[in-house]
C-alpha cells in the first residue's frame, strides 16, 4: 500500500507536532511524498507506482480532490454544479474512463475530524490497526420511509446483516438506548436524506410517505460522537455523506462534530463509504439502481473478502457494466454515482 502524503503541508499544518504525525503516518505503509505537487502531478506520480492501493493522507487542505463537472447538473433540479472526487488519483493520466472505473484502488484518511494533532494521531492509531481488527458481529441499518425498498435491496447484499432497516425513526441525542443500537455493531448502511448546508448538514434525515411529511432528524454526528464504532464498516447511500468541502459554510469547517463520515472514523470505524454530493435513489422495481446499487455491490465485494478500497473499485466497474447496458437516459446519472463515491479509511481494511 502506498501512503500519499504531502509531508511539507503536514509539517506546516501541525507545526511542532509535525514530525510525530509523520511518524504515525509512516506506520500505515510506504510513504510517497507529493509535496508541492498539483492534483495532476500527484496523479502522475501515483500512476508511476507499482501495483497496489493508494491512500491519500489528510483533508482537502493537504491533498486536494479533483473537481469535476456534475454529469447531471441541472437535470431534474440537481443543483450540485461540481463533484469533488478522489477517483482520478486511481486513473492513468489521459484516460478519462478510468476516473469513472479506476484502475487503482484509492482511499483517503481525512484529518479534518479534529482540529489538532492529538485527534489525528488517535485516528491514525485506529487506522494503522484497521486491517487486523476483526469486524464486530451485528448490523445497524436506517433509512427514510420513502427509501425502504432501496434500503431492503442493500440489506440483501450485506453479509451478516441482522434484522431489518429502521425506517425514519426520530433520533435525538437524549433518546435513551439509541447509542446502544449503534455501539458495537460491525456493519452499517444508512439511507437517510442529507443536507449540503449548515447547520442541517450535521444530521441525516428520515421522512415518512405521508403527504407533506416533514423531515425527521434521525442520525446526527453528535449521536455518533457518543457511540463506539470500533472496527465497523460503514456505508452511506445518503446525499452528501462524504462531503468534506464546506462552502457556503457559516460555522467553519467540517469536523467530526458536524460530518457523519468523519464522526464514524473518529469513533473507530475502519472504513466509511459515501458520496460527496447528492445521490440518486431508485424508488421502484427491484430498487437496484444508482447510489444504493453501488453500495450493494460494495457489500458483495466485501463479502468476498476484498479489501475496502478494492471493493469500491470493483463495485464501480460492476455497477457501470450493468448501468451502461440499460437505458441511455440513465447514463449521466450512473456517471455521477461512481464519480462521487469515495472510500475513507484504511484501503486494506476488510469485513
Amino acid at each position, binding site marked *: 500500500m502506498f501512503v500519499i502524503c504531502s509531508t511539507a503541508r503536514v509539517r506546516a499544518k501541525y507545526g511542532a507536532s509535525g514530525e510525530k504525525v509523520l511518524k504515525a503516518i509512516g506506520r500505515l505503509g510506504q510513504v510517497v511524498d507529493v509535496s508541492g505537487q498539483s492534483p495532476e502531478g500527484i496523479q502522475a506520480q501515483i500512476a508511476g507506482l507499482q501495483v497496489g492501493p493508494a491512500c491519500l493522507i489528510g483533508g482537502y487542505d493537504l491533498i486536494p480532490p479533483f473537481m469535476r463537472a456534475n*454529469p447531471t447538473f441541472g437535470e*431534474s*433540479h*440537481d*443543483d450540485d454544479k461540481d463533484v469533488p472526487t478522489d477517483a482520478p488519483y486511481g486513473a492513468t493520466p489521459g484516460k*478519462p*474512463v*478510468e476516473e*469513472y*472505473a479506476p484502475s487503482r484502488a484509492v482511499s483517503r484518511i481525512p484529518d479534518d475530524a479534529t482540529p489538532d494533532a492529538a485527534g489525528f494521531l488517535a485516528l491514525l492509531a485506529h487506522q494503522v490497526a484497521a486491517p487486523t481488527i476483526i469486524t464486530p458481529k451485528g448490523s445497524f441499518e436506517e433509512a*427514510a420511509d*420513502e*427509501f425502504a425498498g432501496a434500503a431492503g435491496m442493500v440489506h440483501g447484499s450485506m453479509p451478516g446483516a441482522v434484522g431489518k432497516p429502521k425506517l425514519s425513526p426520530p433520533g435525538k441525542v437524549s433518546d435513551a438506548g439509541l447509542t446502544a443500537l449503534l455501539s458495537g455493531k460491525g456493519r452499517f448502511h444508512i*439511507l*437517510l*436524506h*442529507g*443536507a*449540503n448546508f449548515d447547520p*442541517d448538514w450535521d444530521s441525516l*434525515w428520515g421522512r415518512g*410517505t*405521508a*403527504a*407533506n411529511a*416533514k*423531515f425527521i432528524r434521525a442520525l446526527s454526528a453528535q449521536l455518533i460522537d457518543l457511540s463506539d464504532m470500533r472496527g465497523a464498516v460503514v456505508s452511506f*447511500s*445518503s*446525499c452528501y455523506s462524504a462531503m468534506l468541502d464546506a462552502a457556503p459554510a457559516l460555522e467553519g469547517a467540517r469536523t467530526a462534530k458536524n460530518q457523519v463520515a468523519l464522526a464514524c472514523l473518529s469513533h473507530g470505524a475502519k472504513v466509511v463509504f459515501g458520496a460527496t454530493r*447528492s*445521490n*440518486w*435513489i*431508485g*424508488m*421502484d*422495481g427491484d430498487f437496484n*439502481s*444508482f*447510489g444504493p446499487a453501488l453500495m450493494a455491490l460494495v457489500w458483495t465485494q466485501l463479502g468476498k473478502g476484498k479489501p475496502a478500497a478494492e471493493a469500491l473499485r470493483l463495485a464501480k*466497474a*460492476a455497477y*457501470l*457494466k*450493468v*448501468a*451502461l*447496458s*440499460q*437505458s*441511455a*437516459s*440513465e*447514463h*449521466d*446519472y450512473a*456517471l455521477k454515482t461512481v464519480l462521487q463515491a469515495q472510500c475513507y479509511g484504511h484501503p486494506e481494511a476488510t469485513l
Partner: protein
Amino acid sequence: MATLNNSDILKIAREAVPEHIRALGQVVTSSEPSAPAVALAGVGPKKRAGAAARNTLIADLAKHVGAKLPKATADVTAVEFPEQTALGLRTTVVHVKNGKVERVFKRG
C-alpha cells in the same frame, strides 16, 4: 402502439408517485413532434460538441467495463415532480418508455 401525447404520459407517470406530489408533474422531455423538447432547447454548436464528447466517453467507458450499450430505441420521456422541501428541491423523476414506467428515482 399509438403514439402517446404528453397528457397520456403524465397520467402514466402520476400513477407511479405518491399522491401528494401528483399535481406537481411536468413533462420535461418528449418525443412528441409538436411538443417543445426542453432538454434540447438552446443547444448550440458548443453544447453539441459537449454532447459529442460525452457520447464518446460513454462509448469508451462501456468498452472499458465490458458493457453492451443499448440499441437506439423509442425515446424515454422524463416526467418530473419537483417538491420543495426543507432540504431543498427533491424532485421525483419518472422515465416513461413505450407507455410504461421504466424508472422512478429521486435525490436523497
